[in-house]
């Protein structure tokens, strides 16, 4: 509290500016204005700090208050304000007054960053850098020179597809990955070709998954490279044979004690098509991303395709993940992926009509349908406008999959030994139980594809209406959303980007569980009856004994007679 009488600062200055009066100013006289104002509590400026000393004291008090450390956080307001002002003056943001609270919060957050420790943390290696390493590996050319020449000598056609060219055409339609990713895939395919014995290769597409995606390459291996599969099949049959002999041995020993064996024999599994034909015409390699290793997918069996038609599941991105579904899928995600790839290829791989033609050799049976085709050297591409207008200018070049799950029908009842060469001749011999299935022959026009309800199976459009002379004809499938094809001049290409599922206008309904099995037909031999009571049993026993006694007496009588 000040005891001194308050005075105004500014009132002093004018006085000093005025010419010096000879007369000293004494106390105010009652008749002068200003009388009595030097008494305490009469001056209007009483609350102002009067003179420098007390003001300094007040300032020190205020500063001490500001410097009071908070018991909770160890900060004090003084330092905090100093930091805020420093930050503001350094950064000079616009409209500072509007964001002042945020700035204050940021300064407080910054306090809690780790200061210099004597122990240094290991710098966290974010996965970013690992992926960059992987991608960098793609760019390194290893032993490039010699292999390069070797490749050119052996084959006339380069095995590596021009991914960037196809990407350019698809980009005109708004389809495709961004250029960087396409280029990484290009390099990854080049690596694949270098490692595996590949004859032709194509970028098939990309299937999205929940945790990771799949990049798929469609490949034809060179002759003689696919003998691994037969080994596995042989082992499977021998294992079954051993089981059968084991069971027969048991039966001889304990016939009476065993419960009745069921006479149910599961239908024999339909054999998968041999590599190089039908659904297994191409071999597929997948990887989770460019830079990651390529994995070969196993060939597909008809049972897997049949089951894949009944289920609809997302891919997770892990090839060994189980597919939990009903009906239970025979295989894991790698098999499911392969089955979907087979279905998509069969449904949506098209080419301009006339690009491929049947091989010139005569076919023995027309019903079989050609399985091979070759490029037509005299193909003249129709103009783009025509390709957009009419669907008859496009044709499938992959055989459709029958209900059985194969491209070529096989009669399962006939299959006694595993000769796959006899299949073609046995079409109509005996198996009356199952109708032979015929699919549309190879190279059917896509105008024959039926749509669903009122949606046509395919949608065509030109990539641009503004510049028709350079536009590209684009085909989109409505049955498999994500399948695209383009044609321009003599070039064409198919690709798939999507989740890997077929479009159905109705919602997916899972297969119902099979009906409950029939019980053993009820008849008198298994009809339940009430057990006889003790009295009934005794009565029965007595009756039996009496009957026996009577019979004996009769015999005795007869014996006596004789």
């Amino acid at each position, binding site marked *: 509290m000040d005891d001194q009488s308050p005075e105004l600062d500014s009132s002093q200055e004018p006085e000093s500016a005025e010419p010096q009066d000879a007369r000293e100013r004494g106390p105010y006289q009652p008749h002068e204005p200003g009388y009595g104002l030097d008494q305490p509590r009469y001056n209007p400026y009483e609350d102002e700090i009067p003179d420098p000393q007390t003001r300094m004291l007040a300032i020190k008090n205020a500063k001490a208050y500001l410097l009071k450390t908070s018991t909770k956080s160890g900060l004090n307001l003084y330092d905090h304000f100093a930091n805020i002002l420093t930050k503001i003056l350094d950064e000079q943001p616009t409209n500072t007054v509007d*964001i002042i609270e*945020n700035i204050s919060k*940021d300064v407080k957050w910054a306090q809690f960053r780790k200061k210099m420790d004597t122990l240094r943390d290991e710098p966290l290696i*974010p*996965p*970013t*850098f*690992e*992926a*960059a390493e*992987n*991608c960098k590996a793609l760019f390194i050319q290893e032993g490039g020179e010699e292999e390069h020449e070797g490749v050119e000598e052996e084959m006339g056609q380069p095995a590596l597809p021009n991914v960037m060219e196809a990407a350019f055409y698809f*980009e*005109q*339609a*708004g*389809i*495709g*990955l*961004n250029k*960087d*990713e396409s280029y990484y895939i290009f390099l990854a395919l080049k690596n694949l070709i270098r490692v595996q014995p590949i004859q032709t290769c194509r970028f098939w*597409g*990309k299937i*999205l*998954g*929940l*945790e*990771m*995606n799949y990049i798929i390459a469609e490949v034809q291996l060179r002759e003689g490279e696919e003998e691994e599969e037969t080994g596995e099949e042989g082992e499977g049959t021998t294992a079954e044979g051993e089981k059968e002999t084991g069971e027969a041995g048991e039966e001889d020993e304990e016939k009476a004690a065993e419960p009745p064996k069921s006479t149910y024999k599961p239908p024999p599994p339909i054999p998968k098509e041999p590599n190089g034909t039908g659904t297994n015409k191409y071999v597929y390699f997948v990887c989770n991303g460019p830079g990651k290793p390529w994995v070969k997918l196993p060939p597909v069996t008809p049972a897997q395709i049949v089951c894949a038609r009944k289920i*609809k*599941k*997302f891919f997770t991105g892990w090839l060994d993940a189980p597919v939990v579904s009903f009906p239970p899928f025979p295989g894991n995600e790698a098999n499911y992926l392969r089955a979907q790839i087979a279905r998509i290829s069969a449904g949506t791989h098209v080419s301009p009509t006339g690009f491929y033609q049947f091989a010139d050799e005569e076919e023995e049976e027309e019903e079989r349908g050609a399985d091979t085709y070759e490029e037509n050297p005299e193909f003249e591409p129709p103009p783009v406008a025509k390709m957009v207008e009419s669907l008859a200018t496009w044709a499938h070049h992959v055989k459709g999959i029958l209900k059985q799950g194969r491209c070529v029908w096989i009669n399962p009842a006939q299959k006694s030994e595993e000769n796959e060469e006899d299949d073609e001749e046995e079409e109509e011999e005996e198996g009356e139980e199952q109708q032979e299935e015929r699919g549309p022959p190879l190279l059917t026009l896509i105008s024959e594809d039926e749509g669903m*309800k*009122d*949606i*046509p199976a395919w*949608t065509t*459009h030109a*990539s*641009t*209406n*503004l510049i028709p002379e350079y536009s590209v004809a684009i085909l*989109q499938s*409505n049955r498999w*959303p*994500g399948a695209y094809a383009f044609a321009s001049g003599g070039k064409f290409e198919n690709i798939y*980007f*999507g*989740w890997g*599922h077929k479009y159905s*206008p109705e*919602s*997916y309904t*899972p297969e119902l569980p099979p009906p409950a099995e029939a019980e053993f037909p009820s008849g008198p031999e298994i009809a339940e009856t009430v057990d006889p009571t003790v009295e009934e049993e005794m009565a029965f026993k007595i009756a039996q004994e009496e009957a026996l006694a009577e019979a004996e007496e009769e015999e005795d009588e007869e014996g006596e007679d004789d």
Partner: protein
Amino acid sequence: MEALSLPAALEPVAGGGAGLSPERRAALGTSLPLLQRDYRFERVWFWGCIQGVRGAYYIAEGLGPDRAAPRSRLYSLNCVDWSLLTPATKEMLALAEQVKGRFQGDPSFEYSLAEINKTRKALPLKLAYFSSKPVMKEEARLIATIEQIDRDVGIVPRGAFVKTPLGSVHENRHFEGLSLVEAKKLSSYFHFTDPVNLKNKTLLEKADLDPSTDFLDSLEHDIPRGSWSIQLEKGGTVVVLRSLLWLGLTFYHVPMTKQFGYVYFGTGEKNLDLPFML
């Protein structure tokens, strides 16, 4: 996604295979700023593209000063001429749920609901009025679908928008992006619509929330669980969220930067088979 950053923003989204052709991109680059000028929007977002059987609709949204206010939506068939769409009404939403199948690509196409009404035994009373008019125009279905998609799966990262005490929502100029760890969690992303679950949180949870940034529903409690697929592409430089409920909606965010956005490239149909597919 922001119209101004369209070319850069389309790159991370292209992982799904769908994108825009150079012609459309160029057209958008010229027509979206003009939209902003004509309609006096503060921000213009390119919402995406709905593929119809015979054509595609390109959709843009315009935002005013309050980013959470109902947005104006415009559609175009060629990315050059845009038409304003009316706001969605509850009847439209209810009717659109009954219509199934692809969009046709022609805005004046009419879906006849008479067949659908026959199979449904009891119509709620408030729709009785519409049973006399058993058609739905494709434009109305488009409006309803866009509204549904925005409501269900339109997402933004946490902290990107702040709510002022007056109730209006602005971009947070202090948003520096999510960190890599946060970006992998579903709780760091919010639905950019009126919150539904927020008031159901317990008091204890609410105490931890910051009312300026946590005023929206997070993705954690979406039903069904697992209806979002989070992936780190390019080794963690971009985090991409794809919705499995509306296949085709892709959200991208580059962690530790301010870039984020979502776009829809798809057929405009809800994936009702989702529970079977997970």
